[in-house]
Structure formats: structure tokens, C-alpha cells
């Protein structure tokens, strides 16, 4: 018989406001096995924990029930308290009388009644609890970073800096991500390439960092400390170890009409290409969709000009499998399609562009060599209209766009406006805004400089229609401060398109069993306290895959994720969750139903010798669970008809005892 202590928390007035905590403590005193029951203002406080510790000693408690907030909040706290008092931490059960009782019920009577019932259920469960000891599993001391933008690069550099090997998987032929496409960075206006490319080179030269470019993750199995990841290395038709990146092939390739994705299709590249001069790795890649040789078997010019003999038209996709202790997701973002926002005439005029296209137009390595020229006729624009919040902050009932604020647009638009006025003072610049959001260090000062020093016209209002007419773009907009409808004959219109997670994120989340929100951003384990961890153990989040972020924020989060990974990889062993399945060999029939449903392959079978009552022995097939691999879902326990398979911490009889206690009225 257990000796159970019950501790009812007021949580200030959070619980005590709707639940009569004294009455609950009193009522639970009468439950079988309960030898001590009390209530206290804040059970999670040091004083509250001391009450628990003292009671464990004084009343020789073998199990405790804390009626308090959600176990997701303080189960770990109270388990530690119990352990400190010499009680096995798994002899603690929480009755959730805050989130699932006092906060959702308004009536004191029914709230109290329910709290008592929840307490009873927890007591019934504790009666059947057994001390559990967590198992240990080794940690593979290598990290995987998925995505090679600034987030992934920074995370990888920091992990490698701590002495752990780390691999970067990047789908594009080069690392660098979106930042490589940018011109200047706010609020300091340093050139993106000048600060990014050294980091790219660092990553490439670091002996602990391996870059799998033009590759993607195709399969993930295992668990924290022991992930098995299959990486698909797409055929690039160029031998990476032989290519010197001389670029001769990219000059000689006769297929010149391939839209250059690095410049967002504003100019063309060849079928064999190196995305940009500072690409890492600086290796050519053949685009199989455009290569004449690959499509028709006739050409082969790149092979002829390659002195290194690096071209290999017969290359195939390759798959490699690696073991990792931790995985960092850094899949980044993309601007949304402007297809549904054609009131801005994006599809109708080349001179209506997105902000990322504007970056390329002002970038010295871009299609215009950094000269701000209109895409339609190459003329210098004299009047530019920037439109903010295109597709951001949309209500779901508008059925297009995103509900969230994309966060980076206010600042980069201020940057674009300022740089335009700085370089081309003869150009008039209008920015239409709903709100200007600049909460960052030196951000608002930056925006004010655009207005005060550079004379950018900030107009509180929105553009309703853009009409290409002749060489002009007739912009019809509102000025809500002056109470006017404006008609501006602009030369260029720049749309601050909302950003969204990369399309690869959703299938990746499924592979990682990491959760996502409705916008396909990865969910963090806790929005405030664990912002760089996914709820899935061993999976960490870096950069815009978790939510819109600017570069400073991305880099800090990237380093934070690295710190978490380093903390994990520093451990030789991980203490597992002892709430894992185990098979009762006496009951097991070896039927394999359980192994069919185990997502982790944690169940194996062996022939075992059993002594029979009549002194004979019998060889029988029985299941056994590898506690380091089992994650404790319990699928096997239901597949098992005999009940031989049970789950520690959530045993059949424990759950049924809870059911009985709840239904006992």
C-alpha cells in the first residue's frame, strides 16, 4: 500500500479563484492511501517545494500528487523536488487543476467538484506507479544543419568552433542563401557580400564542416543523439573533386537562354553554371532541364573545354547515410508569389518588381551591374513608389496573403528608399505604409534618417491600383493623413512581398516529426523560454524557418541553436525517458503485431527457454524492447492482444484506474 501525500496549489488566485483549494485538500484526505493532504499558495515556490520535501520525510510518503498547473509546466519541477527528498521522481503525479479546471470553468462549485475528481484520478494512478530509472543512450558527436543560408552557416561555424563535426545540406549549388542576393544590410548599410562571403569561405575551409551542396535530406530515422539521415546528393554532372571553378565551361556553353534564378530571372545564365562569383563550393553545375547534351545527347562542349576532365554526363543521384546527434533546421524563407495581387500589375509590367528583385537591380553583381535601371527599357527611373505589406497582415477571410507581419519589409524598404535617394538625388521616392514598424537597435533612427535626411516621401496609406500606361505606371493611392486620393505617374513600383517558409519545410517537418504552425513555420518548444528548440528532442531551429527574421536576429538565433547543439553533443550519454514500453515475456506470444506498429524499430524477437510446471523446458519466441530506441508512444500496447506489452508510466492498469476514479460518482 502506498503512502500518498496530496499537495493542492492555489497558484495565487489562478486556481484558488475558481476552486475551493481547502475543500479539495480536505476531500482528498479521505482517499485510500492518502496520509497527508495540504494546500499552499505557490507549490512551485521554494517554500512550497519545502512543504513537499518535509512531508515526504515526515510522513514517509511513497508517492505524491500535486494538484496544480499543467504537468507540461511543472511536472519536471516537482519530480526534482521528490528526488531531492529521496523519492523516485516517477512517483509523482500531477492533477491539472489550473489549465484544465480553474481557468476554463467559471463556477466554484463545479470547479471544485472537478478538481477533486482530477485529484482522485491522480491518486488512483499513483497507487499503481512504480519507481522508474531512466536508461542511457550514447550520443553521435556530429551535427547536421539543413539549409546553408546565413542561419545555417552561422550555426555550423559555431558548432565547429566548439570542436564538433558538422555537415551542411543545401539544396542549391552554393551556400549563401538569401543574404547572398542582398546588396546592403540595414541598419549599418554594410555590403551583404562583404560580411557574408568570408563566413562562406570559413565554412568551406573549416576541417570540421562538410558541405553537401545541391543535396537534400531524403530520410530521417532515429532519435535525439542517434539520428540516421539519408542525404540525396543530386547529380550535378560535374565531379566536385576535379572541378576547379575556372568557369571556362560556363563561358563556352551554347545554351544561353536559361533564366538566372540568382537574379530572379531578370537575366540569363548558361545550362552549365556557377551561381555567382563567390559561390561556395565554387563548382559548376549542369542544369539537366536545359543542357542539350543531357536532353539530346548532342553537344558535349563543356566536356571538351574542361581541362580538369570534371564533366560527367552519366552522373546519377547518390544517397549517403550519416549518423547525427543533433539536427538544426535552417530552411529559411521565400517571398510569396504576387500572382493573387495583380491590382499592382506585377504580371502586367516589368517595371513592377518585388523588393528582392530591387536588391538584385541595385547589386553590383546583379543584372544591371548595380545601376538602378528599369527592367522594361533600361532607363533610369525618376519616380519610384514602394508599397509595403503586400500580402502581409491579411485576414484569413480575404483568402489571400498571410496573416502575420513579415517583419523585415519596413526596414529594407527604408534602406532601399534611402540608398536610392543617396545615389540618385534626382529620383523622387514614395513609400506607402500602413504602420512603420522599427523595433530594433538603431532601427527607428535609420527610418527617420530616410525621412529627414534623404527626403523620402512616407505616405500613410495604401496603393489601390497600378495602371501601366505608356511608359508610366499610374499609381492610385490613398493619403490618409491629408485625406487625398493620390495619382502618381511612377517609373518603377516596388512591392514589399510577404515572406513565407521555404516549400521544403513541410515535408522535412514530417520526416523529423517536428511540429509546424498553420503557416508552415516550425514551432518552437516554448515561445519564450525555448525559442530555438523544436518540441522534438534533438531538433533545433535556426533563422526564418521558425518565423520572419532579419539578419541580426537570424544570426543570434543561429548561435543560440548552436549553443544548444553543443550542449547536447558535449554529453557522452543521454538520459532517456524511462516511460518506455516493455514486454512481459510470460504473457508474450511473439506474434509480431507490436513490431508492425513500432515507428522506431525498437522491438526485436528472440527464442527464449522457459521452464514449464512439469519440469520440462519450452523454447518460445518473445518480444523485447530496446529502451534507448523506444520513445514511449504506446502503439504496441494496443496492438498486443494479450496485454504483454505495456508502457511504463502509462500502464494499462494505471489508465484504467484513472478511468475508474473519474467515473466513480
Amino acid at each position, binding site marked *: 500500500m502506498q503512502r500518498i501525500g496530496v499537495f493542492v496549489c492555489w497558484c495565487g488566485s489562478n486556481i484558488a479563484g475558481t476552486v475551493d483549494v481547502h475543500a479539495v485538500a480536505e476531500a482528498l484526505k479521505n482517499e485510500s492511501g492518502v496520509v497527508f493532504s495540504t494546500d499552499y499558495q505557490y507549490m512551485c515556490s521554494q517554500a512550497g517545494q519545502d512543504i513537499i520535501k518535509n512531508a515526504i520525510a515526515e510522513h514517509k510518503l511513497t508517492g505524491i500528487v500535486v494538484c496544480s498547473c499543467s504537468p507540461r509546466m511543472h511536472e519536471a519541477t516537482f519530480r526534482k523536488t521528490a528526488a531531492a527528498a529521496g523519492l523516485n521522481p516517477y512517483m509523482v503525479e500531477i492533477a491539472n487543476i489550473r489549465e484544465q479546471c480553474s481557468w476554463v470553468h467559471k463556477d466554484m462549485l463545479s470547479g471544485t467538484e472537478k478538481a477533486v475528481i482530477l485529484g482522485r484520478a491522480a491518486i488512483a494512478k499513483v497507487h499503481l506507479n512504480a519507481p522508474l530509472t531512466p536508461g542511457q543512450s550514447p550520443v553521435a558527436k556530429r551535427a547536421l544543419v539543413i539549409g546553408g543560408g546565413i542561419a545555417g552557416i552561422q550555426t555550423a561555424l559555431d558548432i565547429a568552433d566548439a570542436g564538433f563535426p558538422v555537415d551542411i545540406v543545401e539544396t542549391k549549388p552554393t551556400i549563401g542563401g538569401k543574404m547572398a542576393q542582398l546588396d546592403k544590410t540595414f541598419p549599418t548599410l554594410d555590403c551583404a557580400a562583404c560580411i557574408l562571403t568570408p563566413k562562406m569561405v570559413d565554412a568551406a575551409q573549416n576541417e570540421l564542416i562538410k558541405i553537401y551542396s545541391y543535396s537534400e535530406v531524403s530520410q530521417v530515422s532515429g532519435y535525439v543523439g542517434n539520428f540516421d539521415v539519408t542525404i540525396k546528393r543530386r547529380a550535378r554532372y560535374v565531379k566536385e573533386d576535379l572541378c576547379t571553378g575556372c568557369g571556362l565551361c560556363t563561358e563556352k556553353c551554347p545554351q544561353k537562354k536559361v533564366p538566372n534564378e540568382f537574379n530572379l530571372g531578370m537575366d540569363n545564365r548558361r545550362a552549365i553554371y556557377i551561381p555567382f562569383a563567390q559561390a561556395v563550393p565554387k563548382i559548376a553545375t549542369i542544369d539537366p532541364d536545359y543542357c542539350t547534351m543531357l536532353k539530346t545527347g548532342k553537344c558535349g562542349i563543356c566536356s571538351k573545354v574542361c581541362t580538369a576532365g570534371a564533366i560527367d554526363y552519366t552522373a546519377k543521384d547518390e544517397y549517403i547515410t550519416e549518423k547525427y546527434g543533433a539536427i538544426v533546421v535552417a530552411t529559411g524563407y521565400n517571398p510569396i508569389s504576387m*500572382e*493573387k*495581387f*495583380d*491590382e499592382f*500589375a506585377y*504580371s*502586367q509590367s516589368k517595371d513592377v518588381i518585388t523588393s528582392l528583385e530591387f536588391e538584385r537591380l541595385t547589386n553590383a553583381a546583379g543584372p544591371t551591374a548595380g545601376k538602378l535601371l528599369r527592367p522594361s527599357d533600361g532607363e533610369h527611373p525618376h519616380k519610384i513608389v514602394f508599397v509595403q505589406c503586400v500580402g502581409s497582415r491579411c485576414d484569413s477571410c480575404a*483568402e489571400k496573403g498571410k496573416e502575420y507581419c513579415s517583419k523585415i519589409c519596413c526596414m529594407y524598404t527604408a534602406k532601399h528608399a534611402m540608398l536610392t535617394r543617396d545615389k540618385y538625388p534626382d529620383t523622387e521616392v514614395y513609400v506607402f505604409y500602413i504602420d512603420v514598424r522599427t523595433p530594433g537597435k538603431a532601427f527607428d533612427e535609420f527610418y527617420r534618417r530616410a525621412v529627414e535626411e534623404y527626403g523620402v516621401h512616407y505616405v500613410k496609406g495604401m496603393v489601390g*491600383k*497600378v*495602371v*501601366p*500606361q*505608356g511608359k508610366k505606371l499610374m499609381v492610385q493611392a490613398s493619403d490618409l493623413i491629408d485625406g487625398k486620393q493620390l495619382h502618381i505617374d511612377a517609373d518603377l513600383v516596388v512591392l514589399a512581398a510577404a515572406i513565407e517558409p521555404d516549400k521544403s519545410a513541410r515535408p522535412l517537418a514530417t520526416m523529423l516529426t517536428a511540429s509546424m504552425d498553420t503557416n508552415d513555420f516550425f514551432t518552437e518548444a516554448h515561445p519564450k523560454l525555448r525559442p530555438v528548440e523544436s518540441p522534438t528532442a534533438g531538433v533545433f531551429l535556426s533563422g526564418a524557418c521558425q518565423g520572419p527574421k532579419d539578419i541580426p536576429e537570424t544570426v543570434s538565433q543561429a548561435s543560440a541553436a548552436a549553443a544548444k547543439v553543443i550542449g547536447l553533443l558535449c554529453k557522452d550519454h543521454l538520459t532517456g525517458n524511462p516511460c518506455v514500453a516493455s514486454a512481459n515475456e510470460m504473457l508474450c506470444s511473439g506474434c509480431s503485431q507490436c513490431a508492425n506498429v513500432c515507428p522506431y524499430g525498437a522491438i526485436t524477437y528472440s527464442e527464449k527457454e522457459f521452464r514449464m510446471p512439469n519440469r520440462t523446458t519450452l523454447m518460445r519466441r518473445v518480444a523485447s524492447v530496446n529502451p534507448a530506441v523506444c520513445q514511449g508512444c504506446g502503439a504496441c500496447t494496443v496492438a498486443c492482444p494479450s496485454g504483454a506489452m505495456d508502457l511504463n508510466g502509462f500502464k494499462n492498469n494505471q489508465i484504467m484506474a484513472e478511468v475508474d476514479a473519474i467515473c466513480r460518482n
Partner: protein
Amino acid sequence: MKVTYFPGCTLKNKARDLDEYARKSAEALGITLEEPETWQCCGGVFTTANDEVATKLSSVRLLKAAAEAGQPLVTVCSACHNVVKQTNYAMANDPTFADRVNRYMAEKTLYTGDTKVYHYLELLRDVVGFENLAKAVKKPLTGKKIGAYYGCLLLRPGKVMGMDDPENPRIIEDLIRALGGEVVTYARRNECCGGYVSAESPALAKKNSNLIAENAASAGAELLVTACPLCKYNLEKNGSSVPVVYFTELLAEALGLKEDAND
């Protein structure tokens, strides 16, 4: 295919061309347009107020007649289409409204928005198919630079009308292409001509119509096509430099059904 056909009042009067060519073309394309024996005017505009029942009854009766005939309902005039389609949407999606209407009508059977409503253009796109239509063309409109003029009622509210992207529609453009014409796109093709306000504020209608015509002309359009008699009226009355025709007329011409086609 047999469909219930609702011409509406203007097509019986000032916009006979719109009606006549719609009928001729449908016949040539193997579609039987069955006009109900009795019908009432749709009312010209849909009243968005959800407490208005009486002004929507004529549309409900029409929709119900089509439902009883087991046929989809086809309209040609943009205004009729807007009213009928919005009414049908309300009947299907607003149970309170549908209930009030059904009670008001007090008929044996209830109507809950089940009739499929096609604009004639949708019929061409979704039932005939523009590819098939292109094959039926006898006198392609080769070399004609034609701009589509949608106006407001055909496309909006986009959620309800569901015909095409309300900001970047293609259906009339695709029709022009199918008929062998050269498409001219221009941004104001989905802006309002001034509509019924021209009764009270001719100046406003004039300004809007002119902006549209100028935009079309500067884009190189030599001809504008529309589905709306009021659009045609406003554009023409305000001296559009580009001639305006109904899409059905253009269709009939390409199908070789226009008697006075002089080529």
C-alpha cells in the same frame, strides 16, 4: 446540352445584339438555350444588405425554375449574372437568409442554392472548352487587336462570383485568342465604368469611362469587348475612342453567323 437561359430585360430591348448572337452561337455550338416561359427582371443590382428579401425573390424564382428543370442556369448580361449569382450564393451559404426566403415564397419545395449558375463565358470555357471553340471558328478575327473590358460586376466579389482572378482575369482574353484575335491587355479592364451612377452623376461616369478607354487605347486596343450593356452604353456615350462590341457579337462573327459580316 440543354440549359435554362436568362436573357434579362435589357437584352429584350437596347441590347438585342447581345441576346441574338448568344442564341445563334449557342445553337451552332450544340447548346440549347431554353428561356423560361415567364421570368422577371433581376433588379439590376444585388442589394448586399442581408435583411432584404423581396428584392431577391425574382432571382430565387428563376434559380428554382432551373433547378426544377434540372438544368444549369446561363446568363449573359454582367449585371444579371452578378445579381443571380450573389443571390444563389446567399441561398447556399446563409441559412438564415435562405430560410426567410423560403418562408416568404411558401412553396412546396425549398430552394437552397443548388442550381449551377454559368455566365455564358463560363459556359464557353468550362462546357464547350476554348480549344473546341477554336476548332469551330470559321472566320478567325486574325489581326484584330482586341481588349477585354470586364468592368466590375462580372468578377466581383471574387469569392462569390468565382469566375476568374478578379485582379488578373483571363477568360475574355482566352476567348479572343480562341476566336483568332490578338489580345491587348490593359490594367483598367476590371475598373468600373461608372455604372448606374451615370443617371445622377454623368460627370463621374464620363471620367471613369474615359480613363478606361484611354488606357485601352494606349495599350493598342482597336476594339473593346464587353458583356455588359451598361458598360457599353457608358463607354460609347462618353466618346470612347475605341469601339465597343458585345462578346457574343464577336463570337458570332468568328463562327460565321453574323449576317452583315463584311469581309
